[in-house]
């Protein structure tokens, strides 16, 4: 009897001890965050910053050098085609310094002298003509009496003609000398802002809105100086510069989501064009990169973003690949097992290392092409102590 009791007591003691050892050594369940593998759409996008740009821009510049009046147009004003944009006055003359003034004065005196001489020449020519005419009359009288030769008569006639032409020439010379005098006098004219009162009105080539005003105060500008930039902000496109290796994946027609522009929802757009040549740009992190501009058209409801102007910042997400129905899981669940991707899938309350092959990947989700089915539960951000076969409990 006592032996039975003794062995029962011993048995009890040993089982208790065994239980204690078991508790001490039993691996506890690891608490993990779980998520479910789902079927659904997945889009791979290229995300970049872009700026808006008015599609057709017109820079109105001064057609010739002159004084531009103050431009009253402000950025944002509407202009119609043909409306005056700026008024240009002919360029006033330059100031003369003392030496040039003396030279000009001397030149005027010289010209005055030449005028005098020309007039004198004219008088002389007139006198010569008078004489020739008188001579001709005399000769004609003699001819009527038959007292002179034909040759003498002809000589007298040509003398008159010559004298007449000489008088004309002298007259022209007087005119030329007078004109020279005027020119010399003009050099000494005081500089006047009016410059002769000639004004040119520069008009707007299109209907549009003033985007930028390069000059606002009155100033003298050279020919070709930019005055205002006009455009139609209703026709705005987005320019985003992508890394050249990203631009290769973009084709015209791809859908674009436009965010961070200041409105409450994302706008839709489509890639219109990928520019053929790239350029070098220093990235935000300080390295040089080759970039290519991609032009995007907004095809969403224009009324929703009327406030968008020119040069506004937008974040673009170009969808380069999209599928409607693929098996996806969050990238937080992925890790590498050797060279393969793997996850911990839950089976019977235990974590099982499952190798996967992935298709397309985005920052948030990845496409599973083999290894897991939709509905499977996997561990997100598995702790590094988790091993294949460990018991897991979901975190509350």
């Amino acid at each position, binding site marked *: 009897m*006592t032996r039975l*009791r*003794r062995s029962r007591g011993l048995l009890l003691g040993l089982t208790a*001890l065994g239980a*204690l*050892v078991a*508790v*001490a*050594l*039993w691996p*506890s369940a690891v*608490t993990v965050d779980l998520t479910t593998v789902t079927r659904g759409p997945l889009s791979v996008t290229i*995300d*970049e*910053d872009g700026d808006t740009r008015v599609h057709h821009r017109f820079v109105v510049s001064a057609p010739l050098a002159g004084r531009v009046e103050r431009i009253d147009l402000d950025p944002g004003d509407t202009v119609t085609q043909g409306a005056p944009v700026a008024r240009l006055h002919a360029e006033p003359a330059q100031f003369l310094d003392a030496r040039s003034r003396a030279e000009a004065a001397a030149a005027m005196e010289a010209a005055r002298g030449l005028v005098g001489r020309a007039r004198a020449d004219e008088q002389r020519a007139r006198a010569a003509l008078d004489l020739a005419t008188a001579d001709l009359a005399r000769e004609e009288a003699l001819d009527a009496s038959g007292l002179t030769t034909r040759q003498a008569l002809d000589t007298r006639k040509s003398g008159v003609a010559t004298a007449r032409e000489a008088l004309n020439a002298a007259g022209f010379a007087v005119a030329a000398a007078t004109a020279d005098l005027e020119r010399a006098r003009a050099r000494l004219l005081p500089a006047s802002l009016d410059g002769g009162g000639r004004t040119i009105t520069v008009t707007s080539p299109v209907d549009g809105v003033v985007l930028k005003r390069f000059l606002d105060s009155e100033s003298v500008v050279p020919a070709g100086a930019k005055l205002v930039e006009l455009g139609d902000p209703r026709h705005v496109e987005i320019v985003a510069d992508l*890394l050249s290796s990203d631009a290769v994946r973009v084709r015209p027609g791809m859908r674009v989501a436009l965010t*961070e522009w200041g409105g409450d929802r994302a706008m839709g757009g489509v890639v219109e064009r990928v520019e053929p040549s790239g350029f070098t740009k220093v*990235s*935000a*992190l*300080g*390295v040089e990169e080759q970039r290519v501009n991609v032009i995007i058209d907004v095809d969403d409801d224009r009324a929703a973003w009327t406030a968008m102007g020119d040069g506004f*910042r937008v*974040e673009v997400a170009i969808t380069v690949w999209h599928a409607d129905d693929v098996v996806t899981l*969050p*990238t*937080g669940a*992925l*890790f*590498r097992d050797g*060279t393969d991707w793997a996850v911990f899938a839950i089976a019977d309350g235990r974590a099982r290392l499952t190798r996967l092959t992935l298709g397309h*990947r985005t*920052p*948030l989700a990845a496409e599973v092409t083999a290894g897991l089915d939709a509905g499977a539960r996997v561990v997100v*951000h598995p*702790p*590094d102590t988790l091993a294949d076969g460990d018991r897991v409990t979901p*975190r509350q």
Partner: protein
Amino acid sequence: MVRPRLHLRALTRKLLRDVWEMKSQALAIAVVVAAGVTMFVTYLSNFDSLVRTLSRYYERQQFADVFAGATRAPGPLAARIGAIPGVDIVDTRVVADVTLDVTGLDEPANGRLVSLPSPGAPALNRVLLRRGTWPDPARPDDVVASEVFCEAHGFGPGDRVAAIVNGRRRQLTIVGVGISPEYVYSIRPGDLFPDNRRFGVFWMQRAALAAAFDMEGGFNDVALTLAAGASSDDVVARLDRLLEPYGGRGAYTRALQVSAWTIENELTQLRMFGLVTPAIFLSVAAFILHIALTRALALQRGQIAALKALGYGNRTIGWHYVQWALVIAAAGALAGVAGGAWLGAKMADLYNEFFRFPMLDYRVSPGVALWSVLGSLAVAAAGALAAVSRAVAVPPADAMRPDAPARYRPSLIERLGVARRLPQAARMVLRTLERQPVRALLSMLGIAAAGAVLVIGLSFIDVMDVLIDEQFMQAMRQDVTVTFVGPRSADAVHAAARLPGVMAVEPQRVVPVRLRAGARHRTLAIIGLTPDASLQRVVARSGAVIPVPPAGLVLSRVLGDVLGVTPGDSVRVEVLEGARPAFDVPVAALVDDSMGVQAYMARDALHALLREGRTVSSTALKVDPRDLAQLHLTLKALPAVAGVAVREATLRNFRQTMAEHMNLIIAFNVGFAAIIAFGVVYNAARVSLSERSRELASLRVLGFTRDEVGRILLGELAVLTLLSLPVGAVIGYGLGLFIMTIFNNEVYRLPFAITAQSIAWSWLTVVGAAALSSIAVRRRLDRLDLIAVLKSRE
């Protein structure tokens, strides 16, 4: 040849003989005392040595009292700083944090470059050269590197380290190896633990450093010492005012300097442990001593009576018996001092790993040794006094009579009628326990103390596991965190997404600010997070993930306490960079987190407050491990990158450091707990055996087997041990919780955690120790001289 005899007094001879009689019990008690004294000496001698070494180091190397950083201040400002009343010496310097490319390390490391005046030594925070030479003024790329960094990599004078200095790669040549009081504990800002492989301090010539960072004729860091009697608050306030137009980031005193603060904290812990742990051991020792002595004195009744009859006075006899306790305690204390000296030296070596002093002058100061011995003697005397005074007060005539038998009564359980089915041994055990309930209770508490020590010790592992899980698996789930040099435009996020191997990016905006509420303020950084972040999150101690609300600040609860604000209150946020605006921001929530003083806000709200675009200060990246090496290579070459933190490396470093110390801690905990448990059980068993030897011998004579008799004696101990297990667990839990709460400070507030496994291990250890001592007592029982016992009068 007559052997010379020791001329000892009779009583002394009796004392020695008596103590020798109870040598195993005495040994058990002495070992407990030794354990307590060892702890005392280890901790307090280290405390002592550290304090002494520290003060000497600080003084010799002119460690500054006040520190401040700015963006760029002009050189002549130094004179105005010197003119602040209370300022003694001013030392301006150029300090910069750079990325390092260290051969042998894949990921980029961080370096702090501190300027050395050329020529001459710095006025304050002087560097002590350990090896090599000072940099040659003709060679701008020569540096003196910190010793811990060089040791971690095996570098020495002549080795080179590449640094990205302000966007350009420079080869720095290490010409000297040195240490400085400013970096006794060198840790990268933001790390939990020092990582000497990934962070090093380098002292470079000022001319070269200033040229590289456009600081010629200026400075961006200033240190100063205060004159005697100066008010540090006043000086700090004035210094802040002077530096504000130059981007001052808030001055702070030595108490808040990272290295000095950590050491202070360590010292506080040392002192606390040094006083509390020995207290537990010595109380247990006192208790055991009391019980053993009571029994021993009970056995000595006759002798006491005889001595009294012979004429020895009460006091003499009392003193004689107290001396028993003192002898045992003294033996234990002396062993403890020796053990403590040895263990303390080992601990000092351990300190040298983390804290780099020129020489840790470890010494057991006479004061510590003396106090430990005196303390143990006092405690022993206290334990003995009660027993002795009672025993000695009995008049001789009474003493010569045998002691009155104990009360006979059925135990409570028997009276309840439940005991019918219990075996006899069980009934005997119950009655014994009930007869002396106080002693039984105290014995149980003594064993429970062992259990509690184990629970506290093993909980450390569990706390670390919880902390690791919380910090590395919950709060910080990104693989790499890249911090930029200054705030960058939003393009940087896309640029970061294009780095090799990057799978996901979460941008953050970190703004240095001063939070002010009434008269209280704190300088820290607000971290702007994306609202539905999945990589970097705000996690409370309970494990709950706190979502960042769309507006308002989320503060650490300890910060809320310091500032005296609750959710709904407003704090004044003074931005310490850029245009330095100031706003009032409401506090949306307080989070009970474990590490540091943090302030969080939704990124968008922060941008709106600062009236800026979507600027980025750092990014949290999830990286494909296959491309990690390529990423590191790229990051090393990026001029905009100020620092890179790799979670896996940090975690590995953390675990490694912990593992090294964990084994030591566990070993000591188990050892000490076993000592206590063994001591208590052994003594209780021996006392019980001594008291009941006559009964037990009678039973043996009557025919009970050794096993049966053994069960009667040891059953009592088994019941006590079993009862002590849950009690010990509860006491350990409560004490652990209490200790964690005491150690809550602004840098860490660890949650107390203990797993069922740890409790099971602690129970197994206690049961094991109790079992071992039971075996020892059982052997004694088996060898009981039945005849002699039965013949005894008692």
